């Protein structure tokens, strides 16, 4: 096939959008939206990498910090949430062997996520609203620095994403417990108890162990979704609070900022926000590793019962670790710093280490394996968390935090290596694994591009984190600027690694578009011709 023909019709013309079920279309829409917003985040990241080396006149300082505010939110909500929603809305019904509770609700989730992300990104782009994702009180309501209207639309955008997230949460739990039309009544209560870990916990104290009603990946998704419910509630509550101040300012009232205790606010907001970083991300990732390991090997997960217990421990740990973000807050009670900040946080080394080991042991039992794209990206994801979690445990130490907090160390070897290498490579493994399933056998355009994607992403992600970390150990702060080139050597090297990440993304994006073709991309967004609630067409 000629290049133009492949570009239009996809590799060998194998992708036929008309053959897709509504569920397949839904998943592919989520993936495409997630990839587009990942592209936003990568380009924003590169702009900031360049600005850290040399502040370019084209971008004002206010614009830089607006980008810094939008970048992690676009990355997490616009990209990662979209990929996770798409994957899990397919995996849960697939594992439960029944249709998704509501495709309509799932489409609403996609719409709200896509529109909400664009609204807060655009509000930040136009108005330079830049309180960062941390929103430390009273900065989000500082209308001497920021536009009140810009802030209002920014917060509204986040609220839209959160409403979409609520719809996703409802869909996941309802899919687990509901009885499809015409089916024998399902034991909803027992399914829910198994999914959240209650029946597994009771099993520990029973002589005769009861069978688990849901598979391990579904249990992981359900438990991660509990954290998602809690953090969505916190983010929505905080958003409403900030909106109250904004609406009052628009109406000409100046609410007293000191009415809210800044430290109390910081505690509740970090409690909620940390349920993403130290809660659902770790739990979802562990569940995804188990899913990938079982699908790659065709074998059961090694030490499955221990894995279930570890997921439950991780859930409980995630509710009690937030104080590691407040180790440098001197008014924070010492007992919270030591118990929550240090001791409980150290449990994450154990729970994530268990998931790491169990996944590797499951793969090991099935040797020899073929080094497929999904396997190599899974190994990359495992490596990412193996590097990033110990870095996080180090900074969650009263002594070390005094000299690491808010340095590039935090955001380099910990945050970016965890998100870019650990989380994103795990999600890419899922995309490569599900691609032929959700496209009814479309062929990947180029294995060479997939290899470039893998190596450029792995080296770029680890390298960028490493050089940022080196700068952090030399005292370079995050969320700051150095105009005299104090850390330029590290920033140039980190910039080169950032460019590798951009190359990796372009290789992947081109590969996917060439695989399904431009007509295929358009077809994904057209209504499905097959009217069914089944996940896959009958012939498949």
């Amino acid at each position, binding site marked *: 096939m000629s290049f133009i023909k492949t570009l239009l019709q996809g590799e060998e013309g194998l992708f036929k959008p008309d053959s897709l079920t509504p569920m397949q279309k839904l998943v592919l829409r989520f993936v495409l939206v997630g990839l587009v917003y990942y592209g936003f985040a990568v380009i924003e990241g590169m702009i900031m990498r360049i600005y850290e080396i040399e502040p370019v006149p084209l971008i004002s*300082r206010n614009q830089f*910090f607006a980008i810094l505010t939008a970048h992690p939110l676009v990355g997490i909500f616009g990209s990662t949430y979209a990929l996770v929603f798409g994957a899990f809305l397919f995996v849960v019904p697939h594992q439960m062997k029944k249709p998704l509770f509501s495709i309509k609700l799932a489409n609403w989730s996609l719409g709200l996520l896509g529109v909400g992300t664009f609204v807060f990104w655009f509000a930040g782009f136009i108005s*330079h609203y830049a*309180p960062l994702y941390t929103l*430390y009180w*009273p*900065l989000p309501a*500082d209308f001497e*620095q920021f536009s009140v209207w810009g802030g209002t639309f920014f917060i509204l955008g986040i609220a839209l994403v959160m409403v979409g997230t609520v719809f996703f949460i409802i869909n996941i739990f309802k899919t687990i417990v509901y009885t499809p039309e015409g089916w024998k009544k399902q034991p909803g209560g027992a399914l829910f108890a198994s999914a959240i870990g209650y029946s597994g916990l009771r099993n520990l104290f029973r002589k005769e162990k009861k069978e688990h009603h849901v598979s391990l990946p579904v249990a992981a998704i359900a438990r991660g979704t509990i954290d998602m419910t809690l953090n969505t509630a916190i983010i929505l509550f905080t958003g409403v609070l900030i909106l109250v101040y904004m609406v009052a300012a628009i109406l000409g009232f100046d609410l007293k*900022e*000191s009415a809210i205790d*800044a*430290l109390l606010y*910081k505690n509740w907001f970090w409690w909620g926000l940390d349920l993403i970083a130290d809660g659902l991300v770790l739990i979802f990732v562990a569940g995804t590793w188990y899913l990938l390991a079982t699908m790659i090997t065709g074998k059961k997960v*090694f*030490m499955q019962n*221990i894995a279930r217990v570890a997921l439950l421990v991780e859930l409980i740990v995630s509710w009690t670790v937030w104080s590691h973000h*407040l180790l*440098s*807050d*001197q*008014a924070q009670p*010492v007992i919270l*710093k*030591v118990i929550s900040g240090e001791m409980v946080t*150290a*449990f994450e*080394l*154990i729970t994530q*280490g268990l998931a790491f*080991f169990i996944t*590797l042991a499951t*793969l*090991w039992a*099935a*040797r*020899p*394996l*073929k080094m497929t794209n999904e*396997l190599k990206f899974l*190994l990359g994801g495992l*490596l990412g968390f*193996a*590097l990033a979690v110990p*870095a996080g*445990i*180090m900074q969650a130490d009263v*002594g*070390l935090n*005094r*000299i690491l907090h*808010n340095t590039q160390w935090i955001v380099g070897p910990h945050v970016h290596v965890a998100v870019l290498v650990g989380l994103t490579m795990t999600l890419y493994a899922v995309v490569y694994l599900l691609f032929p399933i959700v496209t009814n056998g479309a062929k990947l355009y180029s294995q060479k591009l997939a290899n470039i994607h893998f190596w450029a992403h792995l080296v770029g992600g*680890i390298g960028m984190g490493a050089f940022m970390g080196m700068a952090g*150990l030399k*005292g370079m702060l995050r*969320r*700051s*600027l*150095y105009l005299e080139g*104090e850390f330029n050597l590290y920033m140039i090297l980190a910039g080169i690694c950032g460019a590798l990440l951009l190359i990796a993304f372009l290789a992947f994006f081109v590969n996917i578009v060439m695989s399904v073709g431009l007509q295929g991309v358009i077809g994904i967004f057209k209504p499905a011709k097959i009217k069914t609630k089944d996940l896959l067409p009958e012939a498949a």
Partner: protein
Amino acid sequence: MVDSTIVLNGQTIVYTLYCVVIILLVAWFGYKATRPAKTGIVKTWFFYSFVGMLTVLGVSLHIVTSHTIPWVPVDLHRSEYVPDKTFQITVEKHAFTLPSEELVIDCNDLVLFDVTSNDLTYGFGVFRQDNSMVFQMQVVPGHKNDVLWRFDKPGVYTIRSTEYSGPRGVFMIEKDVLKVLECKESADS
């Protein structure tokens, strides 16, 4: 005495070695996973040994640092120490207001920095001439923000806000405002 440079150098060595080992381990695993093998079942004793190792590592990190990093006990029990000197510092409208007298410290003095914010959340960090960090803390409005520090190296230090407080706060830097006088030991030698 152990200072932040020594601690960070130690951390760099330990973490770098760990990274090299774990990268090689995953690379080795990836290679071996594709080779034919007689049996691949992992023994449960190996699994439980791994869990034990993680537990020991997780717990021992904080025990080791609390016994080797000198500022940890001082930091956690600040009220039990009597500072040799106290500096009251205020932050408002993205600017530090330092005490009217020079910030001069005798070597080995225990100094209390008591920083108050009248509006936003800021940071308070002390940095060496080469931009490396001596220490930092958060400065939260409406709360007491104090840090107790013993300076055992002579030199001139810079104060900088270590927390983002909006674009206006990026250059909250008070360059070379803190002076630690020569230590007696080094002066004698």
